[in-house]
C-alpha cells in the first residue's frame, strides 16, 4: 500500500509536532547563539556577538584543568571498558556455560538503577577508603556505567560474525584464543570502535555520579559546568556547553570516519 493512500496527519497534528520540535531543539540552538553573546547575562536575544566568553572559557584555569581531567579520564574508561567488555561479551555471545544468563544479568545491573543512587552508593563506599576525588575512584565509577554498554554492543557485534569462521580457523590449527583474536575480533571491529566511543562519551559527559565523587583536587568538566550554572548566570556556561557538544560531535565524527574507513577496507 503506498503511503499516499494512508491518512496523512492533519494540520492539528503537524502543528503539535512542530511545537514539540521547537520545544526540543530550542534550548540547544539558544545555547549555541548565547555562547557568542557580547553581553554580561544569559540574555536571549543577545545584545551583540563576540568571542569574549570563549576567550574567558579558555582562560579559566579551573575549567581547563577539568577539561584535561575529563579527557584523560574518558580515555582511561574507554580502554578499561574494552579490556573488560570484550572478553565478557565473547563469553556470553559464543560460549555455553552454566550461569550464563546470570552473568549477563549481573553485568547489566548498573543500568537498572538511577545514577543518583549509584553515585551515593559509591560515595559511601569510597569515602572510608579515601578514594573519593581520586583517579581510581572516578575511573571505577565511570567504568561501572560504561562497561555494561560496551558489553551490550560487543555481544551484538560478535554474534554477527558467523561461528563457522572460528570453526574453520580451529581446523587449520588455531587455538580457541587465536581463532577469536585473528578471525572474530577483526570482523567485529566496527563494534569495538563504537564501544570505545560510547564509553568515552559516557564518561566525558557523566554528571550525577561525578558530583558525588569529585573534590577540590580533582574535578570533571560536566561537574564544573554544573557548579558554574548553579552559582552564576553569565554566558560562560553557554560557551562551556558548546565545548562539551563540540567534543562529543568530534568523537562521533571521528568514529564515523574510522569505522567507515574500516568498512570500506573490508569491502575491498
Amino acid at each position, binding site marked *: 500500500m503506498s503511503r499516499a493512500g494512508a491518512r496523512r496527519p492533519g494540520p492539528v497534528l503537524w502543528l503539535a509536532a512542530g511545537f514539540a520540535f521547537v520545544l526540543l531543539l530550542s534550548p540547544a540552538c539558544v545555547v549555541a547563539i548565547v555562547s557568542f553573546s557580547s553581553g554580561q547575562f544569559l540574555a536571549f536575544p543577545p545584545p551583540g556577538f563576540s568571542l569574549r566568553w570563549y576567550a574567558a572559557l579558555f582562560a579559566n584555569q579551573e575549567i581547563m584543568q577539568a577539561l584535561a581531567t575529563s579527557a584523560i579520564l574518558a580515555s582511561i574508561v574507554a580502554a578499561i571498558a574494552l579490556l573488560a567488555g570484550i572478553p565478557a561479551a565473547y563469553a556470553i555471545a559464543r560460549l555455553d556455560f552454566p550461569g550464563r544468563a546470570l552473568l549477563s544479568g549481573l553485568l547489566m545491573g548498573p543500568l537498572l538503577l538511577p545514577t543518583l543512587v549509584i553515585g551515593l552508593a559509591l560515595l559511601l563506599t569510597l569515602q572510608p577508603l579515601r578514594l573519593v576525588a581520586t583517579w581510581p575512584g572516578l575511573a571505577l565509577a565511570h567504568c561501572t556505567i560504561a562497561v555494561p554498554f560496551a558489553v551490550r554492543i560487543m555481544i551484538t557485534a560478535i554474534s554477527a560474525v*558467523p561461528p563457522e569462521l572460528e*570453526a*574453520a580457523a580451529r581446523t587449520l*590449527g*588455531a*587455538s*580457541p584464543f587465536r581463532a577469536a583474536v585473528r578471525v572474530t575480533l577483526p570482523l567485529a571491529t566496527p563494534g569495538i570502535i563504537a564501544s570505545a566511543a560510547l564509553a568515552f562519551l559516557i564518561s566525558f559527559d557523566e554528571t550525577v555520579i561525578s558530583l558525588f565523587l569529585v573534590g577540590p583536587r580533582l574535578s570533571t568538566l560536566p561537574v564544573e559546568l554544573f557548579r558554574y550554572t548553579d552559582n552564576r548566570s553569565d554566558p560562560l556556561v553557554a560557551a562551556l556547553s558548546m565545548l562539551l557538544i563540540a567534543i562529543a560531535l568530534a568523537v562521533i565524527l571521528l568514529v564515523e570516519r574510522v569505522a567507515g574507513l574500516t568498512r570500506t577496507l*573490508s569491502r575491498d
Partner: protein
Amino acid sequence: MSAYLSLAGLTRRFGSAPPAVDRLSLDLDRGELLALLGPSGCGKTTTLRLLAGLERADAGRILVGGRNVTDLPPEVRNMGVVFQSYALFPHMTAAENVAFGLESRGIRRREREARVAEVLEMVGLSALAQRKPRQMSGGQQQRVALARALAIRPDLLLLDEPLSALDAQLRDGVREEIRALQRRLGTTTVFVTHDQAEALALADLVAVIDRGRLEQIAPPEELFERPATPFVARFVGRSTAFAGVVEAPGRVRIGGTLLAAAETPRPGPAEVFIRPHRVQLGAEGDLPVEVTLRTYEGAMALLTLATPFGTLLAELPAAAGHRPGDRLRMTLPADALRVFAA
C-alpha cells in the same frame, strides 16, 4: 594391512532424541576417497564434524594413521576441512586465507609464501592471490577453500557437500578437478553428499548412512549393482519396489507372476527391487508389457511400463525408440532383481 582411518562405534547424541550418529564403524585405506552418502538429516555431516573435532563423540573411537584422535581438539588433529559455505575469512586475501593454517603451525615466512604459491598454483588461482573472497565467484571461493585445507598437508581431507553450492554446468568440471587433485596428492579424503551421482562418480568407497547408521559400505559399482539393504536399494539407483513372496530359492512371486532372482532370502514375504537398467525389452521375451510413459533424458530414456504384476520403471538407450503405446515383450534376467526379507 591395517586401515589408515578407522571409526569404531562412533556415537553422537543430541539431548534425548535418537542418536544422530549411531555406533558407526568403518575403515578406509590411505589415499582412498570415501563418500558419506545419505538423505538430509541422516547424520553424515555430524560424522564429518566428529572427524574434524568440531563435535565431541559420546562413544566410540577415531583412529587416523594409528593415532587415536577421538578426544583431541580440532587444532591438533591436522585435518583439512572444506565447509559447505567455504567459511573463507572475509577480511583476508586468498593468499592470507591459505597461509592461515601455516601461520598457526609457526612455519616461517619464506617457506609459508612458497607453500601458498605452490598450492594456489595447484588449484589454478595464482592470479587471484591478492583478492578478497567478496571479489571472487563461488567456484573460485571453493578453490581457495580447498587450497587452504590442502596447504597444511593434512592427514585427512574432509569435504562437506563440496559441489552443492555450484552451478550445474560447473559441477562436472570441478568434480574431475577434485578427483585429479586428490589422486595426485594421495590425500586420504572423506566427503559428504546427498547426491548419489556425485558419490558414485568420485569415490573409491561409498558409505550409505540412514538415521545415523551405516547401511552399506562398498565401492560404487558394488553398491549400485548389489545393494545390501532395502534402504540402499531404494536410495541408490531408481529401482521400483514390489511386495512379493519368496517361494523357493531363486524363485519369487509378485502378484500372479513368478520371477527368477539371483539371490533370495529365506522363503516368505519379501521386498523386491527391480533395477531399471537391467530390464530388457524387445519383440521377444517372457512377459507382455506396454509402454505408458516415456521420459527423455538425452542418451537414455526412462520408460514407465505396465506389466502383469504392476508398474515398472525401465531405463534404456533413447535410440531404441520405444514410445508410449508400444506393446513389447520384457525379459528380466535374474540379476535384475534384488530381494530382501520383508
